[in-house]
């Protein structure tokens, strides 16, 4: 029990460290406003979690700080210039409705960040999908001017991107606050994978699904370009690390988690291809919640059956031994 609790806190700590690095990059590209939005989101999430736990008559422990990583993930998926009020409402929704209503930290059904993002998309679509250019620093209480669509939107509509490989690698393109830094995300993914903080099966499944689909149905002239853009755009890499491979949601065994990630990637790729649905992977990962639950149940059932078989085999052996000794 103690080991589990420690494990949970360490996972949260590792994830929050990788998220902070993305937040630092965001500060470099978008200025103090990005840090301010993140601060508001984290404080709101912690306050909401505290109130929800009080209402449920449960103590607020260090483990409950995991809500702050959800708030950080949500912050990195939205534009820096988003209205503060909207951010507060989204965080309250993510923590209160998507997490605590369903039983809180120990009974997670949805990724709170994904639920919060879909809520933002349905309620404030234009505010969620309109961004400033990188290096445009908007003041804390200024209204942003010259908002543009993201690089993902441009790619979904035209199939082309006018950014160099270096710019894409460094995230120097129009997009959400912190989900475009490919190099940083790749390093974060590796760290989290090696430290077993994210579900390796789900992550590899998601990436494999995207690669397979972009090879089967390329969106660019060459396979190489198609795979590159498919992974970089539409928050595929970011969502694969922080949402699809979230250990709280994904099936425990890598074998099942792989197929969970694979199906999410395939469906979201089809949605992007046919409907040019921006950031479809976040929406699909939310819709695939029943699949994750079904796979978890399947895992449990198989484990129980194995245990029963082992127990019966052990009892048969004991009976045989007893019979032999009696003889």
């Amino acid at each position, binding site marked *: 029990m103690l080991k589990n609790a420690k494990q949970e806190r360490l996972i949260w700590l590792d994830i929050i460290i990788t998220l902070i690095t993305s937040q630092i990059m965001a500060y470099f590209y978008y200025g103090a406003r990005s840090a301010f939005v993140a601060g508001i989101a984290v404080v709101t999430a912690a306050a909401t979690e505290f109130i929800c736990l009080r209402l449920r008559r449960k103590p607020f422990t260090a483990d409950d700080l995991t809500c702050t990583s959800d708030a950080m993930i949500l912050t990195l998926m939205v534009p820096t210039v988003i*209205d503060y*009020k*909207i951010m507060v*409402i989204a965080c309250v929704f993510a923590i209160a*409705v998507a997490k605590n*209503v369903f039983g809180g930290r120990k009974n997670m059904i949805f990724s709170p960040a994904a639920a919060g993002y879909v*809520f933002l998309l*349905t*309620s*404030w679509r234009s505010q969620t999908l309109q961004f400033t250019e990188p290096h445009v620093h908007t003041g804390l209480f200024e209204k942003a001017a010259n908002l543009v669509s993201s690089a993902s939107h441009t790619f979904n509509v035209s199939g082309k991107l006018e950014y160099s490989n270096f710019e894409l690698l460094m995230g120097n393109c129009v997009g959400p606050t912190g989900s475009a830094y490919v190099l940083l995300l790749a390093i974060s993914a590796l760290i989290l994978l090696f430290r077993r903080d994210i579900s390796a099966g789900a992550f590899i499944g998601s990436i494999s699904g995207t690669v397979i689909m972009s090879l089967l149905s390329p969106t660019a002239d060459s396979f190489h370009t198609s795979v590159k853009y498919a992974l970089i755009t539409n928050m595929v890499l970011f969502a694969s690390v922080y949402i699809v491979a979230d250990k709280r949601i994904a099936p425990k065994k890598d074998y099942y988690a792989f197929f969970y990630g694979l199906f999410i990637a395939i469906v979201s790729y089809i949605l992007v291809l046919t409907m040019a649905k921006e950031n479809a992977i976040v929406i699909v990962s939310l819709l695939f919640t029943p699949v994750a639950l079904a796979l978890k149940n399947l895992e449990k059932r198989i484990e129980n059956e194995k245990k029963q078989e082992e127990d019966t085999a052990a009892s048969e052996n004991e009976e045989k031994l007893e019979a032999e000794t009696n003889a």
Partner: protein
Amino acid sequence: MRKKNLILEGLWNDNTVLSAFMVISPVIICGDTLRNALALIYAFSAITFVSVLISSFVPQRLPYAAKIMIYAVISSIVFIPAKLAAQEFFPGVVERIGIYFPLLAVNSLIVFQTEARFFRMKKSRMMISLISYILGFDAVMLITAFIRELFAYGTINSRMVDMDTLISGLGLPFGGFIFLGLFSGIFRKLRSATERNKDKEDA
């Protein structure tokens, strides 16, 4: 059961929507504006009251399946003048509500609660209980529509209100579903709190 308890039964203790989760689809799908809500309240109240009243004269000796079919036929007949009147009083709203309007004719109060509850009572008590259940639905519908219209569209009965931030997702079915879930949770919490207070007073 005393008359006061009978009135409170459908409104508070055993609310059609919040307690029993019956007739929730029109509340979730169409309960996003007060205009829709008023049309649905009128239709639900008229169809349910008249249908249950007429159905109460159906002989109870008949087989259960036959009685349910007769109730459905009665409510379908009652639905025709109710719809014509609704088109007169709420022009355009009936079309907007779509399939959920005719579905009111076979709502759970008519189909299930009649046999399980209403027809086991005396006529006078049945009337009081029925009205209480209908009012329970009406109140929930009205509150839900008011809050959803205000926060989703920034209007009250189609009149603009000075709202700074609108949550348009609340006007969608998924928003309605989440809202109703939270509303039901708060309702149950309040109900159990009042019951606890009552028990303390009794003790």
